[in-house]
């Protein structure tokens, strides 16, 4: 517990307060998901661009699509790495800590004996890259679900076992 407190004070300079980083392939997951979203957006912009240029003859072809594509490329290259390194978690003796986000950073602690049930989930993209998401459910209306994506599947399973051992009898 004291460690956690200290980490928050001392390692402020580091991207994720010195917590455990996610499994590296998670970077690829973030990039793939981002890529798909950007592609969909670009197709939409491209369609509008062509319509405005060819049908309405209002604008020169590519005036929207060009800059958008360049911007998308920059985002695609820069963002995943940054997103990835802002994540962190810490599996302490009796609580799980999850840190996420940068502009709006949330640092959540869930004590093990407040966990109601636990999921280990894996979507198709995650499976391709070999990462899992650990999801803990609490009784709180706020934070009823806390997601920790980008774990090595073995680690996720091991963490689940560890937490389950700690779930005490105390009823809420």
């Amino acid at each position, binding site marked *: 517990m004291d460690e956690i407190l200290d980490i928050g004070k001392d390692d402020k300079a580091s991207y994720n307060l010195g917590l455990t980083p996610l499994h590296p392939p998670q970077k690829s997951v973030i990039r793939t998901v981002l890529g798909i979203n950007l592609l969909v957006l670009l197709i939409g912009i491209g369609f509008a661009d062509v319509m405005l240029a060819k049908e309405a003859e209002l604008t020169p072809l590519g005036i929207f699509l060009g800059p958008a594509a360049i911007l998308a490329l920059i985002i695609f290259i820069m963002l995943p790495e940054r997103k990835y390194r802002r994540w962190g978690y810490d599996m302490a003796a009796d609580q799980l800590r999850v840190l996420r986000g940068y502009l709006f950073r949330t640092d959540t602690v869930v004590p093990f004996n407040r966990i109601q049930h636990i999921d280990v989930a894996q979507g*198709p993209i995650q499976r391709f890259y070999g990462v899992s998401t650990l999801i803990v459910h609490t009784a709180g209306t706020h934070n009823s679900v806390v997601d920790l994506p980008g774990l090595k599947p073995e680690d996720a399973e091991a963490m689940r076992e560890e937490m389950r051992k700690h779930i005490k009898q105390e009823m809420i």
Partner: protein
Amino acid sequence: MSDIADPVPHTPAADNADVMEDDAAVLRLHPLSLLLSFLKLIPQFIYIIPALFFGMSKGGALVFVLPAIGALILVSVAISYLKWRRFSYQVGEEEIRISSGILSRNKRSIPYERIQDVNVEQKLLARVFNLAAVKFETGSAGSDDGVLNAVSLDEASRLRDIIRQRKAGIASNTMADADSPATPDAASAEEEEEDTPIFIMDDKRVFIAGLFNFSLIIFAVLAAAAQNFDFLIPDEIFDRDYWIERVDAGKQITGLGLWSQILGLISAVIGLVILGLSTGVITTFLREYGFRLDRTKNGFRRRRGLTTLTDVVMPLHRIQAATVLTGPVRRRFGWHHLKFQSLASDGGKESDHSVAPLATTDEMDRIMAEPEIVREAAAEYLPVRQAYWIQPVIIYSALIAAIGGALAWFLDARLLWLLALILPIIFFMRLHWKHHKYVLTGGQLFVRSGFWRQKLTILPIRKVQSVDIYQSFIDRALGNVSVVLGVAGGSGIIPLTVHDIYEEDGYTLRHALLKAVV
């Protein structure tokens, strides 16, 4: 899509980790559940009928439409089948495990300690096939805890028995008396009819409560009605000439002179006040008439209502936090509204229980003594940082300056007076800040907030479910954080938050809050 075909090679490691549970048989839902889930799909196919007609009317397109519908049905059936194939559950030594999902796989683990109740449900269709749905309820705030949609009736009762036994085994080791469902509580409360109530409101009290519920909502209702039923209103009502003709208003009003105009204004205001007060009194009487709170064996029982009488039981161990609401005027008279935030059970019930709509501090203390919540903080409340009011003031001021400036530029320079709006915003935001205070003492977190709607939340820290430290990029520059608490029950939209305190204080607060939990 290829991952449907080879789900196994990717998960050997996962299976190794499961060794402990592997001796528990992997079970599937009843095959007939396939039929059930397909029957449930049928209503969705109704949307196809218009498409069919459209296709027919186009003639040639029919060749196109029919195969498309066929394919759609085929795909739905395939999906239902795959879902069934990929859904399995295990009844282990310590937990229930549920695996589900076609593309996105999810493995849920529900420890027996956390299962509060097992519900066996038989809907009409399921009954025909002698199937039942088994629902495991844990205390989690989400609605989908663990559901086995269709198992045979025998399997359902087997599961229920196993879980009750396991739970009983756990319970005998500990104090944990299982959360009993509301009905037995209600029944036992019935027997204790003779109990002396812990809090009652007579008609006079309800009337006073009504006065504080001043509301001009009636105008909103009338406006909405006018919108929707304008066909009932004669056309002339919107016709200016009609009114001038009728009352010759302009001449009459100016003719009356200044004093009469003021008198008219005053009487209009008085009229509004009377209307607002009577609306408050009427709605309050409808809701709170005959308010009575009893202490029963397990907790509280509340009865109230004029037209619809409601009767609610609140087991003590489900109470999570207390909320004391008041306002600047009400407070002066010593009146408060006490609520208990309680764990919603059995789905969909209110989780914010009003236990004393208008009470004195003594009356509140008597009620709060039962769940052992102390109302008076033993230590001084701590203020939050000034950023709490300065930040919104800057944002609103910028907004007003932009809008006011633009309007003044384009329309009329006098519109610059709009900037004066910033002054009251500063005033009220500061008031708002002054009323936001917190203190952690005696095992309880006290959080005050709001100037007009003054709210004091008292949270025994053993009821804390999770603690967030939140920091936006502006907060970071200022060295501030907000501490957001996960509490069972209550509003999910506005969680209990201590806004804008020093980063260090935030971490210390979290540390202290969690020390009691772990």
